[in-house]
């Protein structure tokens, strides 16, 4: 009998994995599961120089590099991503504090435009990354994902997942305030 019990071990193992996957899936669907701060190989390194066609102005390009006057934020988003909707209010608040560049990740331009019309546009510029090529360069884990970058193009912070009220007040606003303080000292 003992022998036949061992033959059920694979099933038991699979059941455990399946339950974990099911819970994760349910939480993702309900928006409860969040992917937030991730260790990133990029932090402390120069930003991957990125040039993307602009969503707003058909003739223009959006360039992300290290030749700016002030620190700025880069936010990967997509219209098909539910958590991106959730972070719209937080981005609107942040937009008053810091320049935000949006990157529409693997999205259709008309969908991105509709998304911005529906949920507000916190971005000074929006680049289109239809193929996810820029996402590949940046090592984007999933949308939404947010980076804070210094004026000379060093990645200071990476945040994966939506910015909610909690980390807006505990992480982002204090961090931006400290950046501004540093800049004024110089």
């Amino acid at each position, binding site marked *: 009998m003992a*022998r*036949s019990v061992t*033959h*059920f071990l*694979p*099933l038991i193992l*699979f*059941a455990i*994995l*399946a339950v*974990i*996957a*099911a*819970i*994760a*899936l349910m*939480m*993702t*669907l309900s928006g409860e*599961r969040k*992917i*937030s*701060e*991730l*260790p990133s190989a990029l932090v402390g390194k120069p930003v991957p*120089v990125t*040039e993307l*066609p602009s969503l707003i102005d058909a003739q223009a*390009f959006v360039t992300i*590099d290290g030749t700016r006057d002030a620190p700025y934020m880069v936010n990967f988003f*997509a219209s*098909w991503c539910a958590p991106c909707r959730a972070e719209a209010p937080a981005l609107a608040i942040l937009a008053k504090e810091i320049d935000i560049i949006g990157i529409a990740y*693997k999205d*259709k*331009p008309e969908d991105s435009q509709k998304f911005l019309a529906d949920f507000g546009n916190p971005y000074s510029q929006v680049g289109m990354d*239809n*193929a*996810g*090529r820029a*996402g*590949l360069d940046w*090592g*984007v*884990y*999933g949308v939404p994902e947010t980076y804070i970058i210094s004026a000379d193009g060093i990645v200071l912070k990476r945040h*994966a997942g939506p910015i909610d009220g909690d980390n807006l007040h505990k992480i982002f606003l204090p961090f931006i305030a400290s950046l501004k303080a540093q800049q004024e000292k110089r």
Partner: protein
Amino acid sequence: MLSPEIGNFCLILALTTSAAQIILPTLGLLRADARLSHTAEGLQVISSIAMFISFASLIYAFMVSDFSVQLVASHSHSLKPMIYKITGSWGNHEGSLLLWIVILGLFGLLFVIREERARLKTLTLIVMGGITLSFLAFSLFTSNAFARLSPAPIDGRGLNPVLQDIGLALHPPMLYLGYVGLSVAFAIAIAGLLTGQVDKNWARITRFWVALAWSALTAGIALGSWWAYYELGWGGWWFWDPVENASLMPWLAATALLHSVIVVERREQMVSWTILMAITAFSLSLVGTFIVRSGLLTSVHSFASDPARGIFILFILLGAVGLPLFLYGLRAGRLGRASDYHLFSRETGLILNNYILVVSTFIVLIGTFYPLGLELFTGAKITVGAPYFDAAFNPVMGIGILFMAIGPLLVWRRGLVVSARPAIYLSAGGVLSAIILLLVLSGISVAGIAGIALTLWLGLSIIGDLVFRLRPWQAGMGQRLRLPATQWGMWLAHFGMVIFLTGALASSLFENENIVRVQKGAKIALGAETLIFDGVEARTGPNYVTETALLRLFDKDGRLIDGLYPEKRFYPAERQSTTEAAIRTRLSGDHYAVLGDGDSDTGYTLRLYHKPLVSWIWFGAVMMACGGLIALYRRLNTASPLVEGK
């Protein structure tokens, strides 16, 4: 004409046919009605043909750029070269799923043609009908490739230059041949559990499909890695990304299966284990197919994922993995014979091989899913990368290679073959002297030396085995050359592993890298060689303009070897830029140059690498795949006395 509606209709036809393929033969078997149970074959043929027509109509829609089809409109463009219009049809979620289904149909058809009519065949076809049904339902209900768009746009949006790449286009079909091929092995395994007759005949049938799938999977993974190497411009060839891991796991399990099924074929032992491996390998292919589509794990390679699909996927997995494992729990205890082999026999070697491969599969599985589990229980977010895999996977593989050298020298059932002793002594001697030399002479890390020693150990043992079996110094070698194809296939595949390891070790241990920001005229050292940067030139291509860096490569004596011209391309029509690494590939190693940003005032950033023997990695993989294919051709039971050891 081959309109999208016909494609859609054929999918529905295939769906109903595969439902019938489950019901009718099952009734036939229950009522012992042979005519009814043999309908399985005809139904499989019909649904295969319907799937082919369906896929053909999708390709046709891409070829003629029918932008009223949503999928075409979002993934193709009238100006794309024809070849990329065609390959573009599976460069997206819906189309690639259809490709998966079509390959399933292809394997079903081949299975009907190749195998002899028997109860095992009918049961296998019933299981395959179940797999086909689930996938067709998934495609039709959640990811319809033929959805129309009204009004149709004037042109499509998919003119992404980066994705117009032949390596990227061929990678999915190859990989899917592997994944889907494992579904046949899986179906035969389930059928074997149901009949309870898992014997030499069962193993002979299974081994063919496993070897075929394994070869395709090997080639598919190698193609993907090669693409990442030359196209992404990172200079690496394996990143332990969840998607890459998802293809490695079924490969490891299929490798275990490929070896254990031989034990069943020869000795009718390890029977229930082999069934478990067949279920595992296919389950992991399903995970590999779905991991990028479920929204469960995200990766840089993923298709735009949709968690709603995840629920459907979870149900498919429950059916395709949970049910078989339940059946396995009920039936496995009754299969196989008691073991009767010597401790140092071929059987022991193959059991070790399987344990090591299963442990390494687990290591990859844990590394891939650990972040998810940790997040659920503690909320902490981590990514598991190369450090974990280097520390956990490599040592286990090292032990595997240690035994991989000895296993083939052992004889079935009885023990160490006497004639193999010289091969082992020779290899051990060679390895020991190499270790001493390396320790004394070089500054290579201990792990590096261990890697070199193991590679040498494996290589020498294969050559030793070959030489001492053929004994070219004795008369009558012609007779001895007539070994079974499986023997040659094994040697080739195992030697492919040696070549692969050599490339992987050399390119990481002896790599030279230099990242510089330089002005025109600068001299840059790269290992023994020197490069001179002659500035950046604007050039025009057929539909793009470039910034091309002019680099001249000199050897250590100052002789000009070659020019390297890395580019940054800009496609005005699509308003996109791409980076083209300049790669000078030689058998001895690659020179790899990437042009970064910059201008003539502040200088340009250049990333330069020299990677010795890096192309051996893919040569080795190709050798392994060829070895697997060769082994298909002769059956193991045409036993040669040499294989028996005497």
